[in-house]
Structure formats: C-alpha cells, structure tokens
C-alpha cells in the first residue's frame, strides 16, 4: 500500500516537476508546481508528518502559489519566448546538473544502507509534539520569523509600490 502510494505520488511529483520545466506559459508552470506540492503533501503524510502535509497544502499550494499566479496574471506575461541569451547554461549548466544528480544519487544509494525503511505503521507526529519543540526549544527562531516577515513586508512595499505622483 505504502509502496503504491509512494510510487504514484513520486511519479506525480516528478511529472509535475518535469512539466514545470516543459511548459512555456508561466501559469501552466505554476499549476505544475502545485501538483508537485500537493504530491509532496501526500508523501509527507506517508512519512507521518501530518501537520506539515496540511501546512504544505495551505501555505505552499494555497498562499504562495496563489501569489505566484496572481503576479503572473497581474503582469500578463505571455508564453516564454525562445531566446538564446546563454550558451553557458547549456554547455556548462546541463553537465553540471547531471553531475550534481549523479553525485546525489551515488551518495544516497551508497549511504542508504545506514537508513531504514518506512512503512505506514511508523506512526504520526502529533501537532502536540511539534508545538512542544517549536514553542520551547525553538522559541527564538519562531520569534525571529516575525522580523523576517516584517522585512518581507517592508521590502515588498519599498519595491512594488508605485511612486509616480504621490509622495
């Protein structure tokens, strides 16, 4: 059961990711990304991360990707043009990406024997456990995110506000 679910959603995720790359229109890419994220949410569930799965749907697929699509619509950006500004990206970038994948894969396959297997019966991390750590041990980072978000707001205002006319 686990294997089936994993395979299905892993393939979904990969397909979404590949589609993201292949789609010419940003809106299609955004939709593909949502597919990836949703699939990942399922995988999180399989891994017992209940809360994260929900957060993944709400925060990522919900909030962030909505923002993306909104901006795509706002700017009314059409299909990507086929431009050839960078030869380096092809000649250097693709081999590099291939090497990266090879290294990751080789390392993981070789190191994998030190890691166990995952099954549905492994149990679920409860939100309670999570919040215990989050609000006690990791109180500081949690508070820090407020600063982070403040900065994001400030930045968005500073960069995106139209200045023409008003002071």
């Amino acid at each position, binding site marked *: 059961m686990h294997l089936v679910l994993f395979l299905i959603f892993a393939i979904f995720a990969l397909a979404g990711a590949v589609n993201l790359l292949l789609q010419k229109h940003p809106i299609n890419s955004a939709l593909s990304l949502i597919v990836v994220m949703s699939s990942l949410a399922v995988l999180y569930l399989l891994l017992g991360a209940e809360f994260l799965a929900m957060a993944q749907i709400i925060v990522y697929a919900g909030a962030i990707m909505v923002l993306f699509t909104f901006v795509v619509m706002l700017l009314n950006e059409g299909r990507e043009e086929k431009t050839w500004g960078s030869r380096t990206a092809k000649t250097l970038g693709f081999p590099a990406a291939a090497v990266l994948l090879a*290294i*990751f894969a080789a*390392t993981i396959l*070789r*190191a994998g024997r*030190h*890691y166990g297997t995952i099954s549905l019966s492994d149990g679920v991390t409860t939100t309670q456990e999570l919040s215990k750590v989050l609000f*006690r*041990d*990791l*109180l*500081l*980072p949690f508070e*820090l*995110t407020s*600063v*982070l978000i*403040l*900065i*994001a707001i*400030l*930045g968005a*205002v*500073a*960069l995106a*506000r139209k*200045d023409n006319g008003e*002071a």
Partner: protein
Amino acid sequence: MTPDIFRILPEVVLTLVGVLVMLTDASMSPKSSRRLLGWVAALGVLAALAASLWQGTLPAGTAFYGTVQTDAFSTFFHVLICGIVLVAILLSIDTLPPDRSPEQHHVGEYFALMVFGAVGMCLLTSAVELLVVFIALEISSISTYVLAGYRKQTGKGPEAAMKYFLLGSFATAFLLYGIAMVFGATGTTEVREIATLLPAARSHLFVLLAFGLMMVGVLFKVSAAPFHVWTPDVYEGAPTPVVALMSTAPKVAAFALLIRLLYGVFPLLHPLWMPLMWVVAAVSMTVGNLAALRQQNVKRMLAYSSIAHAGYLLTAFTGSGTEPIAAVGFYTAAYAAMNVGIFALLSVVGGYDERRSSVTDYRGVLYSSPLSGGLMLLFLISLIGIPFTGGFFAKFYSFTTAMQGGAGWLVLIGLLNSGIAAAYYLRLALSMALPSAASAKAQGLSSVGAGVVLAVGIAALATLALGILPGHVLDAAHAAAQSFAAIRGF
C-alpha cells in the same frame, strides 16, 4: 545565570529601533524631511553596539535552549557589524537623494531595512543552531536584496536586486540541502551536538555531501570564486551607500558563519577543507584581481576587488590551530573599514546618481576636492595593502597565519596577486591625482553633511588605527579565536 534576553540584547535593541523607525516614518507628514529617521536609526545602532560591548563583559554562555551563544567571538563580530551598519546609516543620511526629489521615497523603509538586516547579521554570528543560522541568514539576505534594488527608477537597480535575489536563493537552497544532509547524518541541527556526533554519524558520506553543499551556500555569500558571478553586477546596480553596507556587513557575517561551520561543525574535516580553502582562496584572488585589471567602471572594479579580498581572507584558513579565526576576524575588521570608507567616498564624489562611474571620470578629483580625494587615496592605499594601514596588517596577518600553516605557495600567489591588484587600485588613485582641466567640481565632503563626515572619519580612523596600533583589535580577535578553542580542543 544571565537572563536569556541579555544574550540577544543587541538584536532586541535593533529590532525595537527598526520598529521605531517604521513608526516614526508613518507618523511623519509626507512632506517633511526624513533625515531624522536616519539619526534615529544611527543612535539605535549605536545603542546596539553598546549593548554588544556590554555583552562582551558577560561570561560566555548559551541561551534560548542552546540556540544562541554569546562569547568573545560573537561580541567581536557584533561590534563589527553594528559598527558597519552605523557607518552605513550615517553615510546614507546625507547621500540619499535630497528631500522631496522624485527619487526619494521609502527612506523610512530604507533605514528600517538596514537595521533589521543588522539583526540577522548579528544573530548569524551568535547562532549555534542551524535553524537560527538559516533564518538569520535569510533576514540579512532579504533585507540586502531589497536594498540592492532600492534605485528602482533606473534599469540597473531592479536588475541587481533580481540577480542577487534569484542567485542568492539558489545558493541558499544548496545551503539548506546541506543542512538537511547534516541533519540526516546526525539527527540534529545544533552545532555542538553535530560536532560531537560527527565521528559517529550514520552516514559519513552524507556528512561530506552536507559539508560540500553548505560550502556552496556560504562561499556564495562571501563571494569567493567561482561563486562570485553575482558580485560585480549587483555592486554596479545597487546604490553606492548600500554597496558600502552589503560589501562588508553581510560578508562579515558570512565569514563568521564560515568560521562557525568549519571550526564549530566540521573541525573533523580539517584535512579536507584546508586544501579546499587553499584552492578557493587562490582562485578567488586570481580571478578577482585579473578581472579587475581592465575594468573601467569603478564600482565593478571594486566588486572584483572584494572577490580578491575574499580570497585573501580565505587564505587565513590554511593556517593551523585557532590562529585563522583571529586572522579572519582581524581581516574582516580592516576590510570593513577600508571598503566602507572607499564606497562612502564613492557615493560622495561619484554621487548617488553616479555622475562619475568610470575610472577616467575620477580625473582630477584630488584637486577639485582634496579632502575626499585624499581620503580615497588613503583607502585605496589600504586596499593595495601598503603598510601602516589596516589593509596591510590584515593581509600580513592572514598570510602569516597561512605561512605558519605551511601554505607557502598560497602566500606567494596571494602576494603576487596583491602586486597585480596594485595596478588597478593605483590606476584609480593616480587617475585622481592627474591634473585634469576637464574635471568638474566634485561634491566636497564637508558640503554634504555631518553624517558623511562622521562616517568617513570613522572609517579612516579605523583604517589607520588598524594599521598603526592594531593591538587591541588583534587581542579581541584572539579572544574570539580562543572561545573556539574552548569548545574544541584545538
């Protein structure tokens, strides 16, 4: 026991100041001058600096369940970062476009971002939990991304922000992947726990992979070659006062992080990362200097120079014991002093609108504004690494450290590089010294405002002091290094 809050006192102060700046900005009438905000921010950062110094008197210790640690190391870098931010703010007060000009907007946001950015940078130096590291890094980065794009009216400003942002996020993803790997290998993200668990990690390959990925992220932040590609474009596009900040403060923080990673997390990998640093240092110096050789745009030239300086800094890591930490600490201080200084003067002489951008535009500056020109000369001399300036002593100390670690060839490469580097620094310096009839009257230092004078004065004094009487700073750097020795038995 010291209450936890004292361990993050400077950050708290900075946050409050940032909020205060925002509130003041909001409460001011849209027509009134925003200079006040700058002074508020400057005073606030000064308070944070004082707080950091006070922190230095506390016994070393951790807080917030072992997520932050203050000791001599963090104090050193806190003071340094607060100092840089202070100078950058002072500089910005007067060099941002004058009030009510069409370019002048979001001054409140500008200063608030600087102050908030400082929170992230400061925290980066005291964080001992990779999660905090990550968030602090993001705070500092995002504020810098935004500041880089501050001149959004021009074509270059947003482009700089875009490049910086996308490439920065790209690199951060690598760093994050590295953190994930180290977490996977040891099951924790706390620096000291990782270091202790490392020999017994589940998979040593993951440790290596984690190390490599994290290095990608950090080396990007310190703009070491070959991860430097973003630097010239971003420096060119960002407003000059911002470059003064972002070429120094985030870099200082990033170097603190690098030290934390190398000496706090991966001391075990010393035989591995030492040659890595060797190579990266050599490549950075060479690439930076050679590329700067023919560069005409002054800001780009100095961007390449900062790549080279990253190389000189990395040279120190080839030393043995904790000496490199002290050397890096000292170098960052000297580098900050001279780089802030030179960019401060560039923003005065070159102007916010960059009336002067290429080397030839600086002809005759020494005559039309002798004081600015003279001080620029001082900073350039320091960048070259002429003795009795901070730049020399920093380089000297860094290279001494490397030499004692046995990296003689690297030192040779480094010094030959500084010989090459002299060519382009001197080109600018001599260009200013050439008598030129065509030179327009440059903006004088004194006519701009007290903030700039103060900023440049601090930078100049620091540059000289670090060259002539480096003792105190050196001692502080040593103390910082010792705090690492206390952790790991170096």
